[in-house]
């Protein structure tokens, strides 16, 4: 009897497998599992003693056939619905940060791992913090080079560099500390594809005991490897800035010609990326710090060229005037 039941099951399974439409499956369901279906009919004809024996097998087979029918229906269901998935999906808007903000965030992250926090300061600045405290007294020729945008000459101006925040930090915070300072700076420049009255700089400052040029080198090389890539070559050379002594100019190998020299790097093989150095003793003395005990380094770089390189935008004005759209 058990054998006959199993035969019935196998017959049903074979027919289910060969079924080619949902209607057929529905017919098979009625045929085998319905009230007057083959399974129930078979069970009815058995003597009572046999029914007890076959009970659990009967239920098991009922479940098997039911599952088989369901599975077959679901699988076939997919094929019969026919979506053309090459049609475009519903568009959704998403928001984007400005490319300059993205570069700043990336740099902040890199320096965060070295213990640098982010600082900021006013854009409308005084002569005191923008010049005097940076070893740039009145009549220093470097002041003329900067083409200041004055609110009230000479006392109030729009800051010409983020170094003004460096001067403020020196004046208000007790060492040791490390800060990076991303920010807008302003110059009295007529706008053209490579110059604008407003652009971004990224400054850094580390003040404490026993800080020297070897720490500066490590910090900046670490930044270069993280931001530009591990295979880039850097060059540290002597360079003059009023706010530092010794002063350092940092270059990286030209990505186009790999040190051979080309138009992009003016045949130098290297591209300047930033200026740096040890904070000038005059600046430390000015805020009451003893240069024999406390020292520090600082660096500064322009951000816009980096942003333009990354976005493929060649006109700096486009970054701030509505020309860019975010296509994503």
């Amino acid at each position, binding site marked *: 009897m058990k054998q006959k039941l199993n035969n019935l099951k196998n017959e049903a399974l074979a027919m289910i497998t060969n079924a080619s439409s949902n209607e057929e499956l529905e017919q098979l369901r009625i045929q085998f599992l319905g009230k007057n279906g083959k399974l129930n009919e078979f069970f009815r004809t058995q003597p009572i003693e046999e029914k007890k024996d076959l009970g659990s097998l009967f239920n098991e087979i009922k479940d098997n056939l039911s599952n088989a029918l369901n599975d077959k229906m679901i699988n076939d269901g997919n094929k019969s619905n026919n979506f053309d998935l090459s049609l475009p999906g519903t568009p959704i808007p998403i*928001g984007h940060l400005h490319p300059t*903000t993205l570069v700043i965030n990336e740099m902040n992250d890199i320096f965060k791992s070295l213990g640098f*926090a982010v600082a900021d300061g*006013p*854009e409308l600045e005084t002569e005191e913090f923008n010049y005097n405290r940076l070893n740039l007294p009145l009549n220093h020729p470097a002041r003329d080079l900067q083409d200041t945008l004055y609110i009230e000459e000479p006392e109030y101006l729009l800051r010409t560099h983020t170094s003004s925040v460096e001067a403020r930090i020196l004046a208000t915070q007790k060492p*040791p500390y490390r800060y990076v300072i991303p920010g807008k700076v302003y110059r009295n420049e007529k706008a053209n594809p490579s110059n604008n009255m407003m652009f971004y700089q990224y400054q850094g400052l580390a003040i404490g005991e026993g800080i020297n040029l070897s720490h500066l080198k490590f910090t900046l*090389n670490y930044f270069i490897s993280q931001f530009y890539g591990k295979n880039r070559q850097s060059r540290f*050379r002597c360079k*003059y800035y009023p706010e530092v*002594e010794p002063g350092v100019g940092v270059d990286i190998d030209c990505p186009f010609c790999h040190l051979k020299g080309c138009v992009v790097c003016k045949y130098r093989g290297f591209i300047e990326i930033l200026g740096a150095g040890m904070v000038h003793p005059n600046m430390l003395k000015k805020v009451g710090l003893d240069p024999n005990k406390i020292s520090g380094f600082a660096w500064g770089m322009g951000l816009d060229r980096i942003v333009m390189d990354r976005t493929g935008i060649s006109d700096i004005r486009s970054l701030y005037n509505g020309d860019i759209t975010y296509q994503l």
Partner: protein
Amino acid sequence: MLIPLSWLSEYVILPKKTKDLTDRLTSVGHMLDKIKKVGSDTVIDLELRGNRSDMFSVYGTARDVAAAFKQPLKSLELSPLPSKDPNHSLIQVEPSVKDILHRYTALSLSVKVADSPDWLKQKLSYFDIPSINNVVDITNLVTLELGQTLHAFDIAKIKNRKLILRTAKKGELFHTVQQGLDVLLNPQDFVAADSEIPQCLSLIGGLHSKVTEETQEILLESAVYDPTNCRQSARRLKIFTYGGNLHEKLLDPNQVEVALQRAVFLLQKYADAKITSSLSDYFPKPNLPLKIPFDFNLTEKIGGIQIPENQQISYLESLGFVIQKNIVTVPTFRTDITQSADLVEEILRLHGYDQIPQNPLPGLSQPISNFSETTFINKLNSFLINLDLDEVITLPLISEENIENKDMAIYPQNPPDPTKNILRPSLIPSLLEYAKRQLNQQTPRVAIFELGHVFSISNKNYLEQLNLGIVIAGNNLPQNWQTPIHKLSIYDLKGLIDKLCKTFKINNPPLVQEVLPNIFAWEINLNSLINQNINPVPDYQLISIYPPIIEDFNINLTTDYKTLEENIKKISSLINQIDLIDKYDNKLTLRITFHDLSRQLSKEDISPIREQINNLH
């Protein structure tokens, strides 16, 4: 600074490969800018440091090259000058130049003016300086060679053979040596004149007394002026000469003597010159060499590299410094050296910055956190991106026509674009311009924000604050086949603002506005929020095991919506949420959610509430 290598090699032996020379020069602080071939000679162009006035000369460069390559520096052939005349009879110094003239030295010589030899013409040609005659050319040559200007006058054209050194009179006319270039002077300009007319300025010579073939005797002078005064004169008169440029730097007055000695030597050799006077030297404050007590341990302290003391001394000596015990005497031509840190730089640059090792910064003894404005801006940025807004950055100068209350506007003194003449007191005008630009380009949806500083003045105090501005316009989605689109309305912006204010716990925010047809804007000042350390995290709740009962109601709006909502909520605490799902004129359909987290509500609980709601109007 252009340096012809053939000329440079007259003073110091150069490395065989030019690249070795330029690489080392770049490393020690004089970066190679350009390099070009002129005939068989190579001319390098160095980007020079602004504070090394001694490098703006071929000989000065040779000095640094000699130190950088540990080579001897050839001395120049010089002639002795005559003794100083205590009455300095060739010059008369007026008190008005006391602050703008540091040194003025002159003597007279008889000369035979002739065409210059070819080698002299060649040297000047590298610098595009035309050859005039042997006397003028020699003064130009020495200027290029030593970085100190000299000028020769035809002394016959100077009344009484005496130069009066004074400031100009207002409107005084001066004929410069450049034909046709005449300028009007003012009382800030230095002038070397005779009793009748101005003969020479600090930046350029005069027409009347220039040396010609007829000149038989010259007055030769060299001087050092106040750099700021020279810069001001150059800018105002718009005369930019090589010599004038030199004078804007901090020059060493002692080089005046060297320049004259060199010029006299060359004039004697090539112009048959004979000294015809004693030396008139106005030098009221001679500068003594600076002596710096130097701790040789400082090099390691600042540079992070150990260099033996005798090596440090050797570097300094090769640059012309004299070291005795621990006192370093600075040569006077190094006007850029003022203190120990400068000496450390000299030692390190010759040693090579590439030799400095790399060490990670020592551990922090106190944790440092971001400034609060930065922290706040980052939180807000992330949130605004989630509202599908794009960040924009605009310029701070806008046209004053954009604002009504001009009393509180700040007018910069020299805006680069005169039509954008005030610092923005609001972000909206530039955001609006940005939006219009995008809409003109058929961008279907404009949804932008800016987090930036705004500026105003009140009671003579400048105020700089952080604002957030948002502008939306266009359609909510691009046209597509799946979903109907609608034109963005003021309520779309209000929806964003409602979410923002709820998340950042902003009470009583400003209202949204339609600033132009179909362009909506909102702005808020954030300064009171920056320090509040708000954490934009929503309240989390578990799903209740007791489902709510949700019913729709039709209600006529007779008050404003807020009042209606409050009145409904007052009816029962079981009213959990009210959503406006349809509106036609004053007829509202409200979907009201009734919920009790502790028990299953039944129709009996809701009936009395329903009746009260329906009785409201």
